[in-house]
């Protein structure tokens, strides 16, 4: 098979006995290697002369100790998973490393990809897997006083299993003391604030008007100039991955909405695509188009918030009001269709929750018409404002090489000049039938990132228009035993269907064992769900790869040498939300 060409190539280069291929439900080439070979293999893949994999797309782990279906896989207590992305081949590659024992360790990949830093710290924090050959590991998502590693199977999942939360004044003081910035503990500077006369540290966040949530950045300043920046995340860690291990496949859908909480239903798409791959469900045409329409509507909703808050970060007071008004118009549609606003939780395994309401098309077309007009006004008020340009052009510029090296995706990557949009490159969920353009820019700066977002809204309007024009007739949900909740019309007539319905609703479907990863071009970049099913009614491991996590790691690189005002602009232009960073 063509898609396994890379596996054959690896077997030829490193020896067939050292590369162990695995079949997965998503068809993504997957190879097991031993820890000793890992770095050689990664380095070969990153710099191979043809068809290289320049981006470390994801790095995570699986606690395999309680997994029963591991057919055809080497024995392992903990498995490291590296996912690499090749633009040239238009293909991903998954590398797995089997680790034995309760406190395993593996060579660090930070020497190859600096972006591995955050990911490795996350794996250490969540699984207790150590990495050799890198600066000492520090917790990243959990607070420093935390005990245990939450994604290990023995760690309790529920807060209610861990005793009632209380905080005396002494405990609070001790916690605050532990959270305090310490250049030595954080391994960023020599001991003490000696690092040069006239420099000082300042805490931006976790509560700051421009942090867009609970992000904490410690800035080392010289006057107003940012000498260095140390992000501290985890103030918004909601345990979404652990939650996947205790919610049924169906009841996990609402949790996905709250990952990138500005883009509601858009988040449900990658999760359901992965579930449908595992279950082998074919989604009917109408459901596909409805999903695309809602996803694009939420892309506009998310971009509008970005547009407004960005202009507010630059100090403009009014545009955010106009954009939230447009967002309300979009929410009127969302409310008419789904009944919800920000988090409708409306897509279902195999389709959507219900058919579109009567009169939806006029509503949608009126919105498209309105948006076309207002986007023009915003161009005049913001995009063409010379003061706005003076603040944003050239600020936080990145080269394409840096963006790829650090795992940037979405508008971020396209602002650097790479024409890479998954909707075009690997059409998923029915995107192949739509006609739209992928905007790119060349400067890679804050202004270009905004320009991409604005143009994407126009393209989304085009897609939505095509959805309205070509909405297929037919069922809105797949007729498949694993598509829940099952159709209700026959339940009151025969007992078998009733039992079936009852089980499917109360326990949810059991998906066949396997692994699948699905990626979509979400509002902020590429968002992936990597699901491991052990044949049960719940996921064995849910990995959510979010774009903001990678993007926030790049903030120091973009802000060094600029001023605090520029830092605020850069943060505004990155388009992150904290739930998307910390999950």
């Amino acid at each position, binding site marked *: 098979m063509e898609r396994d060409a890379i596996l054959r190539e690896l077997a030829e280069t490193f020896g067939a006995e050292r590369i162990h291929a695995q079949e997965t439900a998503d068809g993504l080439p997957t190879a097991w290697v031993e820890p000793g070979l890992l770095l050689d293999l990664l380095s070969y893949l990153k710099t191979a002369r043809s068809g290289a994999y320049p981006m470390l797309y994801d790095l995570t782990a699986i606690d395999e100790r309680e997994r029963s279906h591991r057919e055809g896989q080497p024995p392992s207590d903990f498995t490291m998973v590296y996912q690499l992305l090749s633009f040239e081949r238009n293909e991903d590659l998954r590398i797995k490393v089997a680790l034995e024992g309760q406190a395993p360790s593996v060579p660090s990949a930070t020497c190859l990809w600096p972006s591995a830093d955050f990911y490795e710290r996350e794996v250490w924090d969540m699984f207790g897997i150590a990495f050799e050959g890198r600066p000492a590991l520090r917790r990243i998502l959990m607070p420093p006083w935390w005990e245990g590693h939450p994604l290990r199977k023995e760690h309790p999942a529920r807060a209610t299993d861990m005793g009632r939360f209380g905080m005396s004044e002494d405990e609070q003081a001790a916690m605050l003391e532990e959270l305090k910035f310490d250049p030595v503990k954080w391994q960023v500077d020599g001991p003490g604030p000696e690092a040069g006369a006239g420099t000082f540290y300042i805490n931006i966040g976790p509560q*700051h008007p421009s942090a867009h949530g609970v992000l904490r950045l410690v800035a080392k300043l010289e006057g107003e100039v940012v000498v260095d920046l140390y992000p501290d995340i985890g103030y918004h860690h909601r345990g979404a991955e652990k939650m996947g291990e205790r919610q049924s496949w169906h009841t996990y859908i609402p949790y996905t909405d709250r990952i990138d909480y500005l883009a509601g239903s858009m988040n449900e798409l990658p999760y359901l695509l992965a579930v449908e791959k595992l279950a082998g469900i074919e989604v009917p045409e109408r459901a596909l188009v409805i999903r695309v329409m809602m996803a694009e509507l939420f892309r506009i909703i998310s971009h509008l918030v970005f547009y407004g808050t960005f202009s507010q970060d630059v100090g403009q007071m*009014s545009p955010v*009001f106009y954009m939230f008004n447009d967002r309300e118009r979009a929410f009127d549609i969302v409310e008419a269709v789904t009944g919800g606003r920000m988090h409708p939780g409306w897509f279902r395994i195999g389709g959507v929750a219900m058919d579109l309401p009567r009169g939806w098309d006029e509503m949608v077309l009126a919105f498209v018409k309105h948006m076309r007009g207002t986007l023009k006004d915003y161009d005049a008020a913001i995009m063409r404002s010379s003061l*706005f340009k003076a*603040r944003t052009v050239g600020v936080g510029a990145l080269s394409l090489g840096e963006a790829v090296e650090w795992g940037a995706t979405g508008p971020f990557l396209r602002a650097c000049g790479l024409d890479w949009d998954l909707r075009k490159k690997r059409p998923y969920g029915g995107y192949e039938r739509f006609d739209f353009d992928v905007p790119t820019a060349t400067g890679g700066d804050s202004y270009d990132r905004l320009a991409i977002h604005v143009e994407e809204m126009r393209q989304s309007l085009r897609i939505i228009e095509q959805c309205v024009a070509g909405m297929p007739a037919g069922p809105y949900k797949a007729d498949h035993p694993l598509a829940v909740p099952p159709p209700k019309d026959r339940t009151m007539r025969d007992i078998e269907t009733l039992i079936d319905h009852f089980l499917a609703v109360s326990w949810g479907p059991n998906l066949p064992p396997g692994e699948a990863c699905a990626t979509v071009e979400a509002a902020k970049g590429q968002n992936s769900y990597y699901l491991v099913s052990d044949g049960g009614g719940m996921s064995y491991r849910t990995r959510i790869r979010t774009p903001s996590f990678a993007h926030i790691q790049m903030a120091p690189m973009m802000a060094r040498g600029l001023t*605090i005002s520029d830092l605020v602009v850069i943060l505004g232009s990155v388009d992150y939300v904290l739930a998307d960073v910390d999950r």
Partner: protein
Amino acid sequence: MSETAGFPIVAGILSVLFGVLIVAALSIWLERRLLGLLQQRSGPNRVGPLGLLQVVADTVKIFAKENWVPPFADKVVFVLAPPIVIATALASFAVVPLAPGFVVADFNVGLLFFLGMSSLAVYGVALSGWASNSKFSLLGSVRAVGQMVSYEVFMGLSLLGVVAQAGSFSLVDIVNAQKGLWNCVPQALGFAVFFVASLAETRRVPFDLPEAENELVAGYHTEYSGFKFAMFYLGEYVGVTLNSAIIVTLFFGGWSGPFLPPIAWFLVKTVFFIAVFILVRGSLPRPRYDQLISFGWKLMLPLALVNLVATGAIVLATAGPR
């Protein structure tokens, strides 16, 4: 009131003082309503008719808020800083003629007094940030000082054209000199430069860098609360009122106008400029610190100088030999 008798002066001072405070408070209401209009919403409208009592409610609340000085602050300076801001702005009104004969003190150097007072105001801002002993406050104060140093220079220079035309520093003389033609026509350039400078002077968008909410949380007044914060808050609007009044006096003929009584004309014009200040705030983004400074030195200062030289030349040429 230029009479020398004791009582009318006190009455004059008090009426100007309360008049200014009322106009400043109303301008807070005006700002919130106007910004609402600009942003397609209604603004405060529940407290009192048209929401006019909103400011009263805010005042009552803020006066009863806990009065507190942070333990890490320099207490004396911390407490003294806010009154400086509001006192200097109020004192400047002494030289502003509101109507013929209705001025608290008609100095012959009235304009210089105004410039001096507005230079003093920055001490309040600078000291507050210094005394707060907080990093965000200090950054705000440093910005304020840098901004003032740059903008004071051409603020003064932009007004010299007016002085040259009137031949006097007294604001009353300047108003009287505009009987034929308001200064905004011959001194259009000076007006433009002064308007920009007074935006900077009042620390309003786009020159609100010392408090830039998105960057410095609340800038120099981050640590202030209750009554002391109220003084900064009100001080800003007294400053807006003052600068509008000065613009009216120097460039728009002060109290002069047909039909209405002079004081009414003065009020109408002042409120108009207050509204302009507010709408500017609602529309523009904020420049970066270095852009602001270079805008001042590289564009505004030369413009002010050109205006001064040109005015001087014309005044000399038309005055003829003495």
